[in-house]
């Protein structure tokens, strides 16, 4: 890459010629404010907050989309620039619902930050406000257009990252709004509730539908036995809400915090992930042996399940019949656990803490129930758990390292890595390899399926058999694999698909990092490290070696894929029509 020399704020710099002025300035330590810009996702120059003065150019230029040029003279801090930025943000604020004190994004809002940084103390423009639209019809997502600043990040995340395109700019001029076609509810659009729109939203226009009040009520209700499960990826990101470095594993403090919140039992979805491996691994071996539908595809990610139901209903037979770990946990809590402890399942409230917003909709699927009771009663996100911890005045950083309760809280390393793309595949391979070879294999690290490459393929030789596998994350990549399957060009045996980029660690329910962090840190990779390091530290790293799992099968289920296991732990799927026309 060749360099160009340019002058920024009076000083000479040499920078690579493929940078934008924004990147060049930041490289040399000169910050320029941005609002709509999100690296690789939304580089459109729409908001004009990043304007700079370029000598020879008549108008101010949006630095986020302006390539550097040899001999360019740029000024990022002149009166004209400062005024223009202030004007722009004031105009945005004039048409913004400024209920900051009660906003779910208060203190984590990029509009709030930029107006503070620009020193805006007065909004000179008080004009009309766009007609607000409020949509909380789904179980997962709340959309409040009165907070929307039309930056387009959600549109781009949905259309370009996820390849779905539920959201777009509608109407024109002052009436422009972001929403689904025909301004319908997201509940009526083929939305998979992955929440990638939420984690890129700079303001409070898109947020999760909160379950916090219901959790507090359940905890107050003395007639209820309220137990909690926490998903693998939660421990990889919860710390961010309390000032920990991204990628810090906070398993011990998480357990203590949950206990202090008052749950009767503190359990771990990782345990259910181990159960999933037993069921899914056995299902795969069965399909391989009996000529079943191949490739078999994982079914842990409810966003992914909704994606295939809407977009590739002809391929539903490829999905594993396994419920997700969240729901396996719930189903076993209201059967196995209830029986063992002599508790009426009707009195059990299962709360799940998930990195996911689609889980909130998943738990409402009527077929995910046992004896008329939904497997899981309330699903909250990592973000909501952090809010509860704060509301309870628990000083997270001062908590002792605790442990999850025995029984449904003991897990293997295989269970932990479910939270990262490739993790379910690796966990499954560890068990399948042992079963096929009849040995306790020492090598458990399948590094070919790790990392953030969009689609990973590998052939693993197990006991003389070549098992062809693929791993995809985000639904654009999922679509690429499904197109291959549809065209008969895929000879894989087993595929793992997660709806979110990077898997659950980067799920729609995870802590929201502002653009200035996301632009320089790959959340997918950093958070995944927290899981792989916990896996490496575990004495038991294979699901079938988890003593609690052995006990579950010995005492209750018999064997994987048994009649009872099928009744409790397996499910079915539906073809869903996109945008049905109401007659």
């Amino acid at each position, binding site marked *: 890459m060749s360099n160009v020399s340019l002058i920024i704020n009076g000083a000479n710099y040499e920078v690579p010629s493929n940078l934008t002025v924004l990147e060049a300035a930041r490289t040399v330590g000169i910050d320029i404010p941005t609002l709509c810009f999100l690296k690789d996702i939304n580089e459109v120059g729409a908001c004009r907050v990043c304007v700079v003065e370029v000598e020879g150019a008549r108008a101010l230029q949006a630095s986020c989309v302006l390539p550097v040029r040899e001999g360019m003279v740029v000024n990022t801090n002149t009166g004209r620039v400062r005024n223009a930025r202030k004007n722009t943000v004031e105009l945005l604020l004039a048409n913004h619902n400024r209920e900051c004190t009660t906003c779910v994004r208060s203190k984590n809002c990029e509009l709030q930050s930029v107006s503070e940084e620009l020193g805006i103390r007065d909004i000179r423009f008080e004009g009309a406000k766009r007609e607000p639209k409020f949509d909380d019809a789904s179980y997962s997502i709340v959309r409040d257009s009165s907070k929307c600043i039309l930056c387009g990040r959600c549109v781009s995340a949905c259309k370009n990252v996820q390849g779905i*395109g539920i959201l*777009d*700019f*509608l*109407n024109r001029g002052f009436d422009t709004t972001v929403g689904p*076609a025909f301004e319908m509810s997201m509940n009526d659009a083929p939305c998979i509730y992955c929440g990638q729109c939420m984690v890129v939203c700079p303001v409070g226009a898109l947020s999760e539908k909160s379950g916090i009040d219901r959790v507090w009520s359940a905890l107050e209700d003395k007639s209820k036995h309220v137990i909690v499960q926490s998903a693998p990826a939660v421990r990889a990101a919860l710390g961010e809400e309390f000032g920990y470095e991204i990628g810090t594993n906070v398993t011990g403090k998480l357990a203590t915090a949950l206990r202090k919140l008052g749950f009767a039992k503190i359990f771990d979805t990782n345990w259910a992930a181990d159960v999933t491996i037993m069921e899914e691994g056995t299902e795969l071996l069965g399909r391989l042996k009996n000529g079943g539908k191949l490739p078999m595809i994982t079914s842990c990610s409810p966003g992914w399940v909704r994606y295939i139901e809407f977009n590739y209903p002809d391929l539903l037979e490829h999905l594993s019949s396994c419920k997700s770990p969240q729901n396996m946990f719930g189903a076993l809590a209201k059967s196995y656990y209830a029986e063992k402890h002599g508790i009426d399942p009707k009195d059990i409230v299962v709360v799940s803490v998930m990195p996911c917003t689609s889980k909130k909709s998943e738990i409402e699927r009527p077929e995910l129930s046992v004896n008329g009771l939904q497997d899981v009663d309330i699903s909250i996100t990592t973000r909501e758990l952090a809010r509860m911890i704060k509301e309870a005045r628990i000083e997270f950083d001062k908590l002792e390292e605790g442990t999850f309760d025995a029984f449904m809280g003991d897990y293997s390393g295989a269970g932990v890595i479910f939270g990262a793309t490739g993790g379910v595949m690796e966990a499954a391979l560890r068990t399948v390899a042992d079963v096929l070879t009849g040995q306790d294999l020492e090598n458990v690290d399948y590094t070919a399926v790790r990392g953030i490459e969009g689609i990973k393929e590998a052939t693993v030789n197990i006991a003389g058999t070549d098992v062809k596998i693929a791993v995809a994350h985000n639904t654009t990549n999922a679509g690429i694999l499904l197109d291959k399957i549809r065209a008969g060009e895929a000879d894989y045996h087993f595929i793992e698909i997660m709806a979110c980029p990077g898997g659950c660690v980067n799920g729609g329910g995870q802590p929201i990092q502002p653009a200035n962090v996301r632009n320089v840190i790959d959340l997918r990779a950093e958070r995944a490290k927290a899981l792989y390091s916990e896996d490496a530290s575990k004495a038991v790293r294979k699901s079938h070696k988890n003593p609690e799992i052995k006990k579950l099968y010995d005492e209750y289920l018999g064997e994987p894929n048994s009649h009872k296991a099928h009744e409790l732990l397996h499910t079915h799927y539906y073809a869903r029509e*996109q*945008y049905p*026309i109401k007659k």
Partner: protein
Amino acid sequence: MAKNFLTEENFAKLNRVIEEHKDMQGPLMPILHEAQHIFGAIPMEVQKVISEKLHVPLAEIYGVVTFYSQFTLEPKGEYLIGICLGTACYVRGAQSIIDKVVELTGVTVGKTSADGKFSLEATRCIGACGLAPVLTINEDVYGRLVLEDIPGIIAKYQG
């Protein structure tokens, strides 16, 4: 425009148009123009077909349709009644003219009658202030209106 515009024949025409354009660069706009022409509007049923065939999300198509004023979601009536609400017409009683037309046709502003006969629009100044208050029906212009004129004018088109 007749009420049943979503005919098999029209969808066959649409499919031909999509086939002709789908491999060109930027096929959406020309297809939408043709669709507006074929159906007289681009409602959800039509947008869905275009979305599926072009692999363009429905929200994007709806966004384009609602951006440009020459595209409409509902078909316009056989007769488009435009009543000028510019300043001159307004001060000379255009609002009562609108009320009368609504009463006689049963169509509210911005809508089309159930039989597809009339659409009613309140327009900005059409530059005929000397004739205020003014209404137009398709290409016909009626000026210096008093309320008593309205039933006779509407009746001409109701036949």
